[in-house]
Every structure is written in C-alpha cells, then in structure tokens.
C-alpha cells in the first residue's frame, strides 16, 4: 500500500502533537492512552469508512448518526419487547434498519438530483422524528438492558497490568478491523468499488463505460446504513445505555475527520488510511486537552483550526493543478 504525502504530513502532525503533550504531561505517553483512543474512536472509524465510500462516489451523507441512533434504538426496543438478549441480534436488527434507511437515501438522491447534503439533512430529521413518534422516547438504562451488551462493550481482548489496575484492548477493535479490511477490499478489489470511484470522478465517463450510477449509489448509501447500524450498536454497548437523543449532532465531526484525511468533497479522491488518521487527530485533540490543562470547551477551536488549515491546503493544491491544466472549476460548490 502506498502512503501519500498528505498522509505523511498528518502522521508528522500527530507525532509532533503527541510529543508536545508528552512534554507538558508525561502521563500521556502510555499504552493506556492508545487503548483508550481505540475504544472511544471505534464508532467514528466505522462510520468514516462508510462516509469515505459515499464521498468517493461524489456524494455526502450526514444522516449516518441519525441512522446509527435510529437503528440501534429501534433494535433495542424490539429486543426488549421480545426479550432477546444476544448482541448478534442487536447488530443484525440495527444493520437491517440502517440498510433500509440508507437505500431510502440513495433513492432520494438519485431521484431528486439535488445536493445530497440538503437531502440527507432532511432525512436525518425525518428518521429521528419517525423513530421518536413510532418507537417512543424512553431511555433504557444499564439495569434494563441485557447484561450481554455491557459484556461486549467493555470486554477486553488482551489485558495488561497497568499502574492503576488492569487495562485492556477493547473488543471493539475486531469489528473496526473487519470493517476497514472489508472497505479496502470493496474499494480496491471489486468492480463495485472501482465503479463508485469512477462515478465520483466523472459520472458521464462512468456512464459511458457501462457503470450504472443508480445501483452504485444504492450500494454506497446502503453500505453506510449498515455500518451506521453496526456503529450504533457498538456505541450503546460501550456506554451501556440507550438514549433517544444521543449521537445526533456529532456527524459533522466525522465529516471533518474525513476531510482532514484528504477525502475530496467533489468525489473520486480519498484514502482509507487518511480518513482513519483524520478521526484519530480529532479524538486525540478531544482527549488530550485535559492533559494540557485546558477545559473541553477549547475542543472545537482546535478542530476548527486544523480543519480550516488542512482543507485550504489541499484545495489550494487542487486549484493550482486545475489552473495548470486549464480546467475552469466552479469555486463556490
């Protein structure tokens, strides 16, 4: 696998930042920090894989947090009613709900031919509203949920004796790794993935090659729906509670992570490793402000600065390239 220059820059930024934090607070440099990062960022890394596929196809989906919430919430409600207790059932149900919602998004995007951002903004509210109207708005706490949720959410794959007791690598890394490998396989080893990249680069050219944008979109949006179901299930297992209003509102951070990682909003460009690095940077900032002695309210400021810098850098490079090739690109869109 080839590592791009932008990814190297991101790695350097992460390394420098980690070094800086370690100088201020040596407690930061420990295996515990890494394990904690793996656990907390697992949901968003799964989601960004789906988002990457969508953005490769030239679209965007911001309803994934809504899908994750609705999928996992509805699955929990069904499980409570019929007294299922297996995590596998939870994940399957949530993924099914996610798939349905994702396909709905794809149909709307293909039909309306309007900016997917606006469409998925609408469906985001639609899904959440439907869930609250049909499935209720009860909060399911730790006592009510099946114990298997907590066992899965806080299970350790490998345990190490730390300074403050046992620390471990969360089981969440298994689904995360599976999703990363699956996404890599889809993008680089299947015709489906190549088609998605193709419609992202030029839908016209892809159409003439015989790709079918409708089917490719159905797949891409369905895929993020399924991943949203999985990520939502993982999240409720980790926090061991189901709220009717959590997760929604955090979607733009995942989009920011993808963009920091070099994924192009206009489609056809984006790397798995870069997207993961983008999410890692955001979570690193989130978790290290305390080490630096700043309150959590500085979080958005740092993410904003990094986001603005990275996107202006990548976009400026592309503009220069376009100018060299005498391509007249529209700037505002």
């Amino acid at each position, binding site marked *: 696998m080839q590592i791009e220059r932008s990814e190297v820059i991101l790695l350097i930024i992460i390394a420098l930042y980690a070094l800086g934090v370690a100088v201020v607070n040596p407690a930061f440099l420990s295996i515990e920090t890494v394990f904690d990062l793996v656990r907390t960022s697992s949901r968003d890394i799964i989601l960004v894989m789906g988002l990457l596929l969508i953005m490769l196809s*030239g*679209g*965007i989906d911001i309803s994934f947090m809504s899908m994750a919430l609705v999928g996992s919430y509805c699955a929990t409600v069904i499980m409570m009613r019929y007294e299922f207790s297996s995590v596998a059932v939870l994940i399957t149900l949530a993924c099914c709900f996610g798939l349905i919602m994702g396909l709905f998004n794809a149909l709307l995007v*293909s*039909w*309306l*031919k*309007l*900016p997917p*951002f*606006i*469409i998925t*903004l*609408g*469906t*985001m*509210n*639609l*899904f*959440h*509203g*439907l869930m*609250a*109207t049909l499935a209720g*708005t009860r909060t399911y706490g730790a006592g009510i949920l099946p114990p298997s949720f907590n066992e899965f959410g806080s299970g350790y794959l490998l345990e190490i004796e730390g300074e403050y007791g046992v620390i471990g690598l969360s089981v969440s890394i298994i689904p995360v790794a599976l999703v990363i490998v699956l996404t890599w396989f889809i993008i680089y080893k299947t015709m489906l993935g190549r088609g998605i990249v193709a419609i992202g680069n*030029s*839908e*016209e050219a892809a*159409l*003439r090659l015989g790709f079918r944008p*409708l089917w490719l979109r159905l797949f891409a949006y369905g895929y993020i729906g399924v991943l949203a179901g999985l990520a939502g299930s993982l999240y409720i297992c980790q926090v061991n509670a189901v709220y009717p209003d959590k997760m929604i509102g955090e979607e*733009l951070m995942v*989009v*920011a992570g993808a*963009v920091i990682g070099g994924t192009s*909003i*206009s489609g056809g460009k984006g790397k798995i490793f870069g997207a993961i690095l983008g999410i890692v940077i955001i979570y690193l900032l989130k978790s290290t402000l305390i080490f630096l002695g700043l*309150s959590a*309210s*500085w*979080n*958005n*400021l740092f*993410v*904003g*600065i990094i*986001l*603005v810098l990275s*996107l*202006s850098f990548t*976009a*400026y490079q592309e*503009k220069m390239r*376009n100018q060299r090739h005498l391509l*007249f*690109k*529209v*700037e*505002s*869109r």
Partner: protein
Amino acid sequence: MQQNYHKNLKATKSAPLTYFTADANLNALLTVFVLLAVVCAIAFGSAMYSGANLQSMAFQIPEFGFVALGMMLAFLVGGIDLSIVANACLSGIIAAFILTGQWLPGMSDEWRIAVAVCSALGLSTLMGLFNGLLIATCAVSSLIATLGTMTLYSGIGMALTGGRSVVGFPETFTAGGIATVGGVPLIFLAFIVVLAAMALLLERTGGGRKLYLFGGNPVAALFSGISNFRMNVITFTASGFLAGLSGLTIIMRVNSAKVGYGDAYVFQALIVCVIAGIHPAGGRGKVIGIGITTVLMQMAASAFTIMQLSPYTTKLIWGLMLVLVLGLTRDGKRLLQLVRAPLKQRHLAPSVEAESADFLTKRNSLEDSEASITTTGAPYSAVNGQQEIDGKRAVLPKVNDKA
C-alpha cells in the same frame, strides 16, 4: 411560445400587483400562504390571530429571517453557508462582552452600545470575508469551507465563554429588543427594511444581475468578464454581515449571549430557501419568496406550539416537508401527469406505467418530451427505442453538475 414570452415581459414591467403573477413558484407560495392562514384561522381562531400572538411572532421572525437571507445569498451562487449561526453567536458574544463592560470598561452606556454594535457588525463581516476568501482563493467547496469555519467560530465562542451565557446588558440596549412602533416591533421593521434593500440590490441593479448570472453559470460568467473571485467574496461577506444583524437581534431579544443559541436555524434556513424557490444549484430565486416563507415557517412553528407537539414531531414534520418540497419542485409536474394520464387515455396506461418504473434513469428525456407521453397515442411504443437514445444524450450534459 413567442407570445407567452412577450406576455411575461409585459407582466413584469406593469403594475406592482402583477409582480407576483409572473413567477409560478411565487404563485404557489402565495397560495400555500393563504391556505395556511385560512386553515390556522379555522383550527386555532383567536389563539393564532390574537394581537399578542401576532406580535410575538413578529418578534421572533427577524433573527431567523436574517439567517435565511444570508443562506439565500449563498444559495444564489450555488453554495451553502453553514457558518451563519455560529457567526451570529460569536458576534453576539463579542457585543455582549463589550456591553457588560467586561471588555473596554469605563465607557458611558451610549458609547458602549455604539461600540458594541459596530464591533459586532464589523467582526461578523470580517468572518464572512474570511469565508469568502477561503472559498475564492483556495477554491474550497463552500460546504466544507463553512463547515470548517463553523467549527472554528463556535470554537472561539466556546473558548471565550466556556459555554456559559453572558448576561447583564444596559437597559437602553435591551429596550431596543422590545420596542414597538404602533404595535409593530422595531426589529421586525428593521428586517423589512433589510429585505427591501436586498430585493432592490439583487433584482434592480447591475451588480445583482451579475450575481444571478454568476450563480446560474459561473464558467460562462467568468468568460463574460465577471470575476468569480469578487462574486464569491462579496456574497459570503454580505452573508456574514447578515449573520451579525441576526446575532445582535438575538442578544437584544433574549438579553443574553451564548454559544449554540439557534443551532436549529441552519437547518430551518435551508428548508426556507428550498421552499422559497431559491434553487440550490444557484442563479434562481427571489428575495420576496424568503420574506413570505419566513412568515409561513413562523406561523407553522406557532401552530406547533399551540398544538403542543413534541420537538421530535416537529423535527419529523420539518424533515418530511423538506423532502416533499424537494420532490415536488423536481417532479411535481410529472407526478401530476402520472395521475392524469390514465384518466385521459386509458389505452395508454401500460406504457405510461412502464415508463414510470424506469423514469429514474430517463427523466431528463421525459422533461423534454412530456407532451409526447400524454398526447401521442399508438406511436409511442414504436418511438420507445428512439426515446432511450435521446434520453442518454439528454442525460449526459446534465450529469456533470455535482453537489
């Protein structure tokens, strides 16, 4: 066709009353407006049309209206501005710090208000300028650029306030928020003035025409000597200025400043723009549409409050509304035809149905040949192959305009 064109031209030139009738979307909007007003009158009666409720609606409209106008500007150039509300909050916070005397202490109340208002408007314009420069010089897509600056601006606001609200303004300032002129809130009048000024600038001046042209086809505009750079910068700077107005209105009315106030406005402003007929691809839409739709939304919100709907249900309705309106603007005519066609010509029904199953891939050709589906009878199936070729050819040029 030629005759119609002349008729329209005449209509736009004549009396102000026919201003509305020249535009199909505005007609639809006005119809919906009247319908909603009547339905509200029947359903809620005095609860909706009491003087107090009307006045409270007029108090709430401006802060959202300014956001919607800013979003409209971004829509007109085919972009989107997510940072408006964050910008409004930050400029409101800056004004609040000066008003409460935490910054620049030791001024009289009048001076403090003047400095606060100027710095809020100046800063919001600067933030808009920053958006514009980011979009114009670095060629960042406006969605991503304003996503970044939204995070940045709300981040600055959070870092300054730590998430707490800033309270304790001089009374002369907050009096402006509750002042009325003959029963009409002062801030509402200010909104009307800004609305009228924008309508004049956009629709009656050369600069406004340039903006529409640029939004409609930026590449063509570039080759006609309209600077892409200048258009983008001006648009997003103006959007920033409107955000500042919104921020001032908010702190004047609620008497405190806080990050995260009015976050839902971004989403609602998008809905308002879409309903008002401002096309997301740019270059189409009228200011008066925003005015009508803002009032419409406020009436709907008021009705929801009277009906005591939960915030979730409200969310559901807004989401449904956005999807429906998008669908109807895109395919309303065609859907109407699908309903009508079987009634008109029964023997044609199968081919029309087959067409409808397949219309996702072929809709571009259908738009061009709508007449042939319903009016021509038997030849249609024979022409089908030809249609498909035409369809492909018609699809291709349109495919390029990505989101």
